[in-house]
Each structure stands twice: as C-alpha cells, then as structure tokens.
C-alpha cells in the first residue's frame, strides 16, 4: 500500500471553497510512492499534489475524496492485471510519463501489468521480459494501438477507404506479422501512441461549441453519443474514434485491460462520473512559485480548471485561452534574491503566454487548418489552432496534420549505415485513389508513421491528422505529441519553430517553455 501524503481533504462543495492554501510550498507525493497500483484501495483525496521536474501538479476531485475500493477506474477489472489508473496516473497528470514507465520496469523487472503483451510490447509475439520487446514503451512511452484494416463503420462493417496502405518499414515486425499484420489473420494495423490525460474531460468532451451532426472541418457525419443520440465533439482520442468518456472506457477495457466481459452500465457510469469531476494542472512552479494565489493569473492551477467554463472559444481578447490578465508583467524587482528569481520567472511565463497568444507566424500546409476557409498560408498565432479556453485544444473536431507523423516533417533517425540509432516507428505508404482529389498538401502518395484519423475515416485528407492534445499538466507527462517524438517541452517548441519556420529567438523559446511548464 502506498504511503500517501495528503495535502488536504476538502469538502465536496469544492466549487465554493477556496483552495489557495494548497498551492503554497508544501510536501508532495513523489517517487515510487506516487504510483497507483490497481487495487490500492486508498482514497484519492479531494486535493493532492505530486512532484514533477517543474514543480508540483495538483489534482482536484470536485466531488470530494474518491473511494477507490471497488471503483472500476482503480481496480484490475480485466484479465491482465491492469486498471484504468495503470496508464492514467494522478501523479502524471492522469497520463503516463516515460519516467514512470522506466521506473516501473526497474522496480518490477518488467512484471508490471503496463508491460502486458497486448499493447505494452512492440508486438504481442515478441519475447516477454526482454526490454527490446518493449522498446517503444520504454524509450518513448508508446503503447500499441491495433486498429482494424480496412476501417469499419459504426455498425462494424468494413469500409472502402480512399487509399491503399503498404508497410514500408516495420521495425517492430508487427505490421508484417502473419497474425497481427495488416495482411495477417487479424487484419490489424498497429500504430504507437501516448496515453491521453483522463482529466479535465468536462472541457475535452464539451459539446457546447461548434458541434453539429456534421463535422465542421469536413462536412462528414459526426460520431454520435450512443446514450443521447447527439453528435459528439470528437476530441476524446488521438483519432477521435470514440465519442464519449463511456465509449472510450468500454473500448479501452476491451483493448487495453482485456476484460472478459464488457463493462456494466454501472461501471461505465462510475468511470464517467469520476472523470468528469477530475481536474489536473500544474499547481506550483519551482521557478514561478504558487500558480494560484490572490491577485494572480486567473487561468492557472487546477482550481481554475475546476471552476472554468467549458465549450468556450478562447482565441480572443475577451476570454483568452489561458487567462493571465497581464498579472505577471512588469513585476517589481523583489525584496530579496528569492523574490527576484520568482518574479523573473513569472515575467518569463507572462512573456511566454504573450508569444503563444500574440506572436504571429505563417501557418502553412497544415491539413484541417489551412483548408477550412482561412487560406494557405495564414498569418496567425499558436492560439489559432490551440483556441479552446482553458485547455488549448481545438474547440471541436480538433484533428489537424501538423506533420508530427507525416513526412517530410516527422522526425525519425535516417536509415543509413552511419546512423547510431535506427528508426523506431513503422512507416506506411499511403496511395490515394486517382479518381478523387489528392491530399491538398501531400498529394496522392504519402509516407506516414501513423495515418491518424484516416485509419478511422478512410479519408485521404485525414492521413496523419491527430486530435490536438490539452496543454494541462504538461510538466508531469513527458514525452509529447501522439508519437512521443518530443522528449521535452523545448522539443515541442523546436518542432513548431522548424515546421513553420517561425524563427523564435532563444528568449522566446525559453519563455514559451516556461509558460508551458506552468499549465
């Protein structure tokens, strides 16, 4: 049983209870003790902080402390010993940091259920307990996602995709395997992705903005919530294949937990209720200090997440994506060295916010942003795409191709006799039908590590399009991007700088990194 250091046990009526005290410097759970094992049975407090390299992450349960005993999110309800919490760790911002994965490997000698063969290995047919069999998980934090090929529609019938798929490079061996390969017995395609944070889902799944029966970026049918019959915002997963927390839970229980029976309606409702009242954000910064305090920026800290409005477009100067009200601009020098350093860090965060929000650059050749009536290129800012108030996601139907998985922008080591490191991810050749319009920027032949949304929609224009991630808790859950290709916050910034030829100054890069670290 873990030793938990609870910072506070707050009443259920959180929304009316200030949480200022919890953001002051205080001991936090760290190291091995912050790992949640399935069936740990301790309560998840109403408020708790966890240490990370940038400070501390705060977790808020607005309904009060969560009794985890018997709770389907926390119990090993499948056949492989995993629970939902295995890959959605509170200390990792309800995702799973690479550092935690490596630590679990070392602590359990590879026996932790997160290393289960089904998806914790590069391919289930590889030798168990060999680190090489788990290299994508151990080096980049990636789980195998096996999807039907060809894609299936909502009724389970095979679709006719607009493109063919060939395996060009198969370092894991899975996509050419006689069982697991795309031409194998199971007719699967394997891609490798990071777990998404299971927190702040009130925002992530909100349908209050831009949701209609038809997808705003393509006009195609939106996925429907089976409980209500209403269209979903399709921001839940990297490829938008599941519309709601419940359907995601059911799917994940089947594919990741290997349950023998589908989750019951009661279990699904328990998971949904838990996830929709759960908020995660950085609470304390080693440089900038407390992130939620009287007179400070209103958009920082987990408390702000718990009380903010969902379904709001923030790419404007009335709501803002991450409201800071200029509170950390032009601060006094400080009375002593500690305060001077803190204020300097805060000013850097404020500058980083301003770079994010106001610094224009040319956004070009990005599918589902340059193709929705804005033109190619557009002179805009980060907040154009990352416009959802409080999360930095897109407001609805938020998949785009920024080049994180498609050539020529996706980074993998070149295959050459001189390379010290070989490519780790598979490479697919996508050939789009000649009788249909080509992908507007990549043509009819596309090379990709992960076709993304196209594996669900079957559309050529969706190749490599990935749903935008939320920005919260970044400090706790490296690496970044769906394929773990950015090991650090700096590498995120460097990717965009390279991709869009932004030419950030070193100061701008540092400020952006500091800004991202406090979200």
């Amino acid at each position, binding site marked *: 049983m873990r030793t938990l250091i609870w910072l506070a046990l707050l009443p259920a009526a959180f929304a009316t209870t200030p949480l200022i005290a919890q953001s002051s410097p205080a001991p936090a759970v760290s190291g091995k003790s912050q790992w949640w094992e399935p069936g740990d049975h301790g309560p998840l407090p109403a408020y708790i902080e966890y240490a990370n390299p940038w400070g501390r992450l705060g977790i808020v349960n607005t309904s009060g402390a969560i009794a985890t005993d018997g709770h389907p999110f926390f119990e090993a309800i499948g056949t492989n010993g995993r629970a939902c919490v295995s890959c959605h760790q509170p200390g990792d911002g309800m995702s799973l940091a690479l550092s935690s994965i490596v630590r679990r490997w070392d602590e359990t000698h590879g026996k932790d259920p997160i290393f289960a063969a089904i998806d914790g290995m590069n391919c289930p047919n590889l030798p168990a307990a060999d680190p090489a069999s788990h290299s994508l998980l151990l080096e980049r934090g990636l789980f195998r996602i096996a999807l039907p090929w060809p894609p299936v529609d909502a009724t389970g019938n095979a679709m006719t995709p607009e493109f063919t798929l060939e395996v060009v490079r198969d370092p894991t061996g899975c996509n050419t395997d006689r069982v697991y390969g795309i031409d194998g017995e199971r007719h699967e395609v394997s891609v490798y992705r990071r777990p998404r944070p299971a927190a702040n889902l009130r925002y992530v799944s909100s349908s209050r903005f831009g949701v209609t029966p038809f997808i705003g970026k393509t006009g195609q049918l939106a996925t429907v919530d089976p409980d209500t019959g209403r269209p979903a915002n399709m921001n839940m997963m990297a490829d938008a294949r599941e519309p709601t927390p419940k359907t995601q839970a059911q799917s994940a229980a089947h594919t990741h937990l290997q349950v023998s029976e589908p989750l019951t309606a009661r279990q699904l409702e328990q998971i949904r209720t838990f996830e929709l009242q759960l908020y995660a954000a950085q609470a304390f910064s080693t440089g900038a200090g407390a992130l939620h305090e009287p007179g400070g920026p209103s958009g920082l800290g987990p408390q702000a997440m718990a009380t903010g409005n969902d379904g709001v477009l923030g790419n404007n100067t009335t709501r803002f994506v991450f409201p800071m009200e200029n509170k950390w601009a032009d601060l006094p020098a400080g009375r002593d060295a500690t305060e001077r350093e803190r204020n300097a860090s805060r000013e850097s965060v404020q500058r980083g916010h301003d770079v994010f*929000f106001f610094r224009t650059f040319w956004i070009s050749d990005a599918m589902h942003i340059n193709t929705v009536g804005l033109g190619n290129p557009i*002179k805009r800012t980060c907040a154009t795409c990352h416009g959802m108030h409080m999360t930095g996601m897109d407001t609805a139907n938020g998949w785009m191709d920024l080049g994180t998985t498609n050539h020529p922008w996706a980074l993998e080591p070149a295959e050459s006799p001189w390379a010290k490191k070989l490519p780790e991810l598979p490479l697919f050749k996508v050939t789009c039908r000649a009788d249909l319009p080509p992908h*507007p920027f990549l043509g009819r032949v596309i090379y990709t590590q992960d076709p993304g949304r196209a594996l669900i929609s079957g559309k050529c224009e969706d190749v490599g399009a990935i749903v935008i991630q939320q920005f919260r808790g970044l400090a706790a859950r490296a690496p970044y991007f769906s394929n773990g290709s950015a090991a650090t916050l700096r590498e995120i910034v460097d990717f965009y700088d390279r991709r869009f030829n932004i030419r950030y100054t070193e100061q701008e890069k540092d400020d952006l990194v500091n800004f991202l670290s406090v979200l």
Partner: protein
Amino acid sequence: MGTQRRRRYLLVLVASLGPAIAAPAPAAGERINFVSCPIVRDTRSVPCWLSEYQGDLYYLTIQSDVSATVQPPMLGHQVLVEGVVSAAAPICGGIVLEPVRLSVMPERDANCNTLLPADDRYTIDFNPRPPGPSAGRLAFATDPAPPPASSAPPSGPQTFNVYFDFDKGVSFRHPADLVAILGMATRLKATRLRVTGVRGAHRLSDGTLLRESEAIGQRRANEVAQLLAGAGLKISTTVDWTDGASQADGVDDWQSRRVTVVLEP
C-alpha cells in the same frame, strides 16, 4: 465575350507599341473568369490575396476568419476566379473584383508559391480581423435576425442549392447547409427527398470551357444523400445527376457546381 476579345486585340496592339504605353485597365462591370496562381502580399496587419491574369493584377480578398464571404485560396494550388471588375480604388495594388467567387483547384501546383513581403506602399484601410486573437466575435458575424412575425409552417416542396468547390465533394463549407436541410425536413414533415448532383462547367474569359470531372455530379449527389440519411433523414429518396456544361456562359458559372435538394411534404 466581345468586350474581352476587343481587349485582347488591344493588348496585342499595346504590346507592339512598346513598354512605354500601358494596357488599359479592364472596365468596371467587366466579368473576368480565369484560372491562375494566387499571390500573397503581406501587409503590416493581415495579408492580401491577389492573382495575375493577362498582365493585370487582381485583388481577391484579405485574410479574415471563417465568417468571411470570400475566403482566401491556397498557395500550392491554382485558383478559379470568377468576378466582376469593380470601380473601387485598387487594394494591395490589385484591381478589385466585386463580387468575386474563388475556388481552389484540387490538383497541386508547385509554381503557385509567391509570397510577397509587407510593403508600405500597400496598406489596407479596413481590417475586420487582426492576425492575432479576435476581439471576441467573428469578423463578418451579423446580429441575430429578429424572429419572424409569423411562424407559419412551410408548405409545398422546398428547394435548397448546395454549392461546391471545383471538383470537390462535401467539405467544411457544407455543415450549415446540411443542418438547414435537416431542420426544414423536420418542420415540413418531409416524406420525400430528391437529390440532384450537377457536374459544373465554366466559360473562362479566354473562351476555354473548363469542366469538372465526369463523375462529380453523381458523387456529390450520393454523398449528400448519404450524409442526410446518416444524420437521421431516412425518407424516400431519389438520387440523380446531370451535366451543367450546356449552361456555361461565363456568368456566375460557379452556380453549376451544385447539388439541388428538394424536400416534399
């Protein structure tokens, strides 16, 4: 067409006289239809979009937001321009086309890559949407219309025209159209749906007949019918398609790139 032919002769004449004599600007009211590369000219605020045709530079639009009536084209692709020459003063150095209809050509064209830096000779005195965050509303959003005086239910067949980009199917342009059709179907208690796709054709200013791909009308009609059915409009449906080539005369030919939907009670 006669005006355009006369102008071409004039251009040849002017060219033979040497560079000292500039070609006359096209006359206000003249229709101009052409396919060419778009050009981006940056300004201190938002970029302008231009295109060159037969030695004249035309202003197409500026960058704004998704509410703009005329949305910018795309570098990397040619653009089909269908417009009327305006008497307004040039913008960003380009002759203004008003109204103008733009359609991005689907095939890629690497030659369409001209992005000109900001030049203080070219300023724009209107700026509905800055390049950074907006002031909180869409640039061209209109105030909500007052509710109709009477809410008499619709009666009789109701017709909708849904317009498309050149050789393209359903896109980001169409959710609002499709939602409107669904709404009318409910109010009308529609029992029958007729969907007719049209293969568009365009008479360009140089006389060329530019036609969409042969199967596009059928593809559009099927796609619209399937989307409406998928969204719950499961009523008796007829799908048909036709060819709009014979109607192409250089006047608003963009209207031939369409699907016509008829709802019957």
